[in-house]
């Protein structure tokens, strides 16, 4: 039986939720292709939901992965659409001459008719693609596209393989800064008033959004453009490069709903979206929608 490899990234050791999302995707895909699921990861990786675990001594590193995949010929390799996953995925695709599909959302069809659906045009559209049979596939899955796999059995077999010492990276990390715990942790708030590009301006925030958040006993949050514009500090960012939140009410004002943002708030209990663009992707995730200008409703 051919295998579907789920490649674990080093930070999956500390936080397995992204790996669990890929395992949900892998179980789905394995069912469509009739393959087994193998997790390939470093020491100490938790691989519940996999049929087998391939543990690499010395950690997961692209060169090792290429050599192992050449030797064992998996049909597909699933990585995360993250900085690490893209770099490793592209090294794998070049090394294996594989098909490479990034920004993957979900799968459709079975066997030879399998389609991979990708996120395109800032989430306003999706693209279904067909992959060739004559080479392996490397796929990078968007964070948040699949729910984490829970309550699965541990792998039936664990195999160890030797890694190689990775070549020193030419990119030297001089300093790391983690987001500071802010005075108001948006992950704890029961109501978030979240602002995007479409509500523009500090005056709106001061005169309306901040008082509303206070009145509701909540906090302000934002999508990337509002942070880049300097309207709110980075600790208010919701999404892949910010916080993952699950408030009782998420009021999204002028937020288009790019996948990077939705990955951080899709689990909120009640999502209310206000946006001028009736095609904004945020409406696909909202319980309640208002097509209009947040300033007018204010």
């Amino acid at each position: 039986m051919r295998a579907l490899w789920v490649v674990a990234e080093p930070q999956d050791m500390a936080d397995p939720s992204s790996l669990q999302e890929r395992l949900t995707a892998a179980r789905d895909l394995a069912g469509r292709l009739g393959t087994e699921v193998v997790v390939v990861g470093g020491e100490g990786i938790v691989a519940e939901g996999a049929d087998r675990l391939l543990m690499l001594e010395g950690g997961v590193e692209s060169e090792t992965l290429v050599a192992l995949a050449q030797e064992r010929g998996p049909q597909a390799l699933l990585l995360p659409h993250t900085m690490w996953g893209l770099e490793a995925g592209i090294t794998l695709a070049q090394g294996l001459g594989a098909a490479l599909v990034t920004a993957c959302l979900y799968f459709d069809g079975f066997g030879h008719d399998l389609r991979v659906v990708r996120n395109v045009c800032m989430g306003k559209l999706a693209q279904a693609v067909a992959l060739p049979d004559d080479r392996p596939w490397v796929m990078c899955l968007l964070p948040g596209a699949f729910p984490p796999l829970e309550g699965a059995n541990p792998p039936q077999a664990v195999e160890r393989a030797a890694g190689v010492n990775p070549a020193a990276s030419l990119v030297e990390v001089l300093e790391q800064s983690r987001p500071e715990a802010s005075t108001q942790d948006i992950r704890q708030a029961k109501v978030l008033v979240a602002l995007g590009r479409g509500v523009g301006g500090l005056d709106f925030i001061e005169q309306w959004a901040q008082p509303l958040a206070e009145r509701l006993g909540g906090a302000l949050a934002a999508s990337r453009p509002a942070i880049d514009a300097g309207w709110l500090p980075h600790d208010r960012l919701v999404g892949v490069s910010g916080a993952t939140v699950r408030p009782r009410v998420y009021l999204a004002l002028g937020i288009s709903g790019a996948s990077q943002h939705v990955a951080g708030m899709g689990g909120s209990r009640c999502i209310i979206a206000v946006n001028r663009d009736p095609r904004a992707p945020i409406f696909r995730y909202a319980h309640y929608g208002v097509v209009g200008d947040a300033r007018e409703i204010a």
Partner: protein
Amino acid sequence: MPTWVVCVKQTVDTEAPQIPLRDGHLDEARVQFRLGEWEAAAISLAVTLKETHGGEVVAVAVGPPRVNEALRRSLALGADRAYHVVADSAPLADPILAAEALAGLLQGALSGAFDLVLTGEQAEDDLASVVPFWLAGRLGLPCVWNVQRWVGLANGQAEMWREREGGVAERVRVPLPAVVAVASGVAPPRYAPFKAVREAKTKPLATIPLPDLCAAPKAVWQEVAVFEPSSERDTTFLQGSPAEVAEALAGILREQLGGQP
């Protein structure tokens, strides 16, 4: 004299009121194209580097004849010259096609003589993020992705802040030449006054047919369809005057939050 290369893509304008489809694919004849937001940020950074360190800014792009407009726009925003690799590639095609063509251009026409290759961290239409890593792999160069802020350049090394998932920011140092993929906020947008637009028409723009550069790369995967994704939820849309909508929203908030205003 340093050479700052910027890979630009003429992207689908994803903020246009409509992204027209026809027969299950993008209707390219009616789609509005533009120089993407990330590409414009990369040009802006390159022009800043030129202002600080001298040299020239070279904009490069792959695609059908319409791509010429994005390159003229790049020239109006401050690039000195441009290369257009003419290839019949669709906006959402397998990005390795463009990446291979760009690798061929950088090694061929530019004979590897550049200090920095800037790209956007993603293109707003295909969202693939493949080109920077692919180029780095092909050219044997380091790649720094999702760069939020440029710090500086000294002794053949560049320093910058990049951002990883979970909001972790890293200050990194990399020897040049390198591939650097920027976030849209890396440099403030520049504007092209009328004079610059006029001057851009006389700046050198070389067109090179793809087969002159490399054996035509082939897309590995094929697009089957492009479509509007279905809704994840049964969204209730609130209608009425702004006052009526505000009233309805207040009711929903009360209900969800258990009696609070």
